[in-house]
């Protein structure tokens, strides 16, 4: 019993993660709603531990600045959450072996398919690996938790986004919440908390065609 009591929470957290990963692999339109439900049910039930971050949100002061600071712009659909890796971050990672601690920070690994390339993006139909800091953890008390950067929210598998992102040298796409818009009802919508930024105000409510024209015409 003691053994079970010790490892049961870990097992539950692991099962939740596996269920989450398994349930988010479909890119089929018909599975979109179901994926969303699974995604939201997992994430909403798990307590979130936020990590304070200062985002470079002034890059969204105008479209040109945002384009210069990102470089890869497209409309894409998140087709899968493939899992997560951990990145060691902190003093123990910077100077290995110094005795200082570091955090095993979860990085969620998604897959996104290009629906419409707008600038600096691979052709339509291409699939890119997409990383987002944050993910599921097993906390020190054995209960499941989710790490999230303050101001950010997890990608929704099956959802379509306008992405202002950066492609790393290893081919992985990264983006910030101020450079991400949803297209749930056919119109661009900023993430919660970022609607006040000039670019968000400029693009909110625009159709994909409108946004494409804006991006392509921007200096």
């Amino acid at each position, binding site marked *: 019993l003691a053994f079970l009591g010790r490892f049961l929470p870990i097992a539950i957290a692991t099962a939740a993660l596996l269920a989450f990963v398994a349930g988010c692999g479909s890119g089929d339109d018909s599975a979109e709603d179901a994926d969303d439900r699974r995604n939201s049910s997992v994430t909403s039930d798990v*307590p*979130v*531990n*936020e*990590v*304070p*971050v*200062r*985002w*470079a*949100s*002034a*890059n969204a*002061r105008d479209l040109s*600045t945002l384009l*210069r*600071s*990102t470089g890869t712009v497209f409309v894409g659909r998140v087709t899968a959450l493939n899992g997560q890796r951990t*990145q*060691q*971050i*902190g*003093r123990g*990672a*910077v*100077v*290995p072996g*110094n*005795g*200082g*601690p*570091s*955090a*095993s*920070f979860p*990085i969620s690994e998604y897959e996104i398919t290009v629906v419409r390339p707008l600038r600096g993006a691979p052709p339509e139909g291409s699939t890119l690996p997409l*990383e987002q*800091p944050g993910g599921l*953890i097993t*906390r*020190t*008390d054995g*209960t499941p*938790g989710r*790490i999230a*950067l*303050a*101001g950010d929210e997890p990608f929704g598998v099956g959802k379509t986004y306008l992405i202002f992102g*950066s492609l*790393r*040298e*290893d081919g992985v796409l*990264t*983006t*910030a919440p*101020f450079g991400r818009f949803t297209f749930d009802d056919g119109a661009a919508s900023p993430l*919660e*908390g970022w609607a*006040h*930024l000039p670019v968000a105000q400029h693009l909110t409510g625009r159709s994909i065609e409108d946004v494409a024209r804006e991006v392509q015409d921007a200096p």
Partner: protein
Amino acid sequence: MLPSQTFGGVGIRWPARLLALAAIAAAVAILGGGSPDTEAHPGHPQKKLFLGHWYHTDVPQEVDLTTSTFFFGLSGDYDGDTIVDGCDGGVNQTSCVLKWQNPFQDAINDWNAQPMDVDFIQTGNQNPANDIWIITMDEVFHNPGILGVAMLYNSSGTWCGDVEGGYDACIFRYGDALHGDDSHSGPYGTAPVRRATVLHEIGHLINLRHESVNPPETQLYPCGLDDTGPIPVSIMSYDCIDPPPGGAGLSTVQDWDTCGVNHKYFDPLTAFSDCDSDVDGHVDQLDNCSTVPNPNQANFDTDDTGDACDPDIDGDTILNASDPEADGDRVMNTDETNCGSNPNDSSQRPERVDGVFAGVSDDGDPQVDEVLPPGADDYDCDGDGYIGTTEAAIFFGSGGNGNRDPCGNNGWPADLFASTPGGFQYNTLNVQDLGSFLTPVRHFQTSSGEPNFSPRWDLVPGSSFGEHINVQDLAAMVAGSTGFPAMTLPGRAFGQMCPWAP
């Protein structure tokens, strides 16, 4: 005796009883669910900062926080993801160091200049397992959209993100402030912005959350606002520190950041604060007026509120605004104002030179026993009922101090009968003073040039009411030439002893 343990790179001693207290506090935090302490204002009364869990002390004292050498001279793949970390990814570390060195130092100096009980020091004696580390990397999380992130650890070295309740419930002891070099380009590519990022991330390491947000940080507000309305500007607000034109371009710590924050991480010992909001040398909990500097803590009516904040300083139920003598020092407001003093501070009065008031500054300025300001002769600066010009005439040639001494035969015009200190009726206005008009020398009904005339009894100089010394002078002896002997408020002068030793 229980053992103590060493904290930090400079060997701060943490007595075991403090550790026990921290353990109790941690238990309370866990049982209480670790809810964040937020939304403290209106009025911003929280007055809370620099109680970071890792430098709590049971008495206010200076505590040193060592900082690491800021790490940007290193490069390498520290996290095994094949991407080079370290400043500028190791491409041009010299340039990177030059970019960040001054902003880092400026940020440390700025925090150290604040009225707080902690200092950041840089020594070669850092403990790699503790302390504050400030690390500049190529990119944080390899994401160019992130300027900086704060990592907090508890006393066991566990990252607070891994504990129940996260940063909001963690009893953190030390932390890392990580900054992305590549992110600081474009609008963020200036030294003030880099400094602001360092200031901001260090702010997280000393208990501050973001400002200009709602508590769950799902909504951002412009600089100077949050979900509760207007707030002061803060280095912890995105919009305040973002570069113009979108942001306010703030790159220095503000007063509110040290004394009045709205959002902070959970602190189990939040009841204890050593914040001195008005920087007058008295911590808020012990300051009888924490919003207005009052280093002397004057409180005439000995209620809970110091004079500087008290709407009725002298406690006579007449509010200061309507009280002609508001602060109870027995000098009328008008006289105090014109004689160089503060009518709303019972510890300040126009300069005096008698008794215990000699040799010190009475009016709050740096000067001692200085002459009264120009124009003061038309006012009763010492509150004895006689204006300066009157006293000058009365004490002419006698060596008295007139308008700077309200007591005794040499300073109080009404105290005509000279007696020795401690003697009968000394420094008291009574029938003997009245009798001195007649005996042993009859001054009454004499005028200048006559044998028994003395300006000392001519309490209303220049009177044309018959002889120079007449019934008008007798009346003035009791009531004062101004008709309002402030020194005996609210009664009359007769029968009273001057309250200030001559």
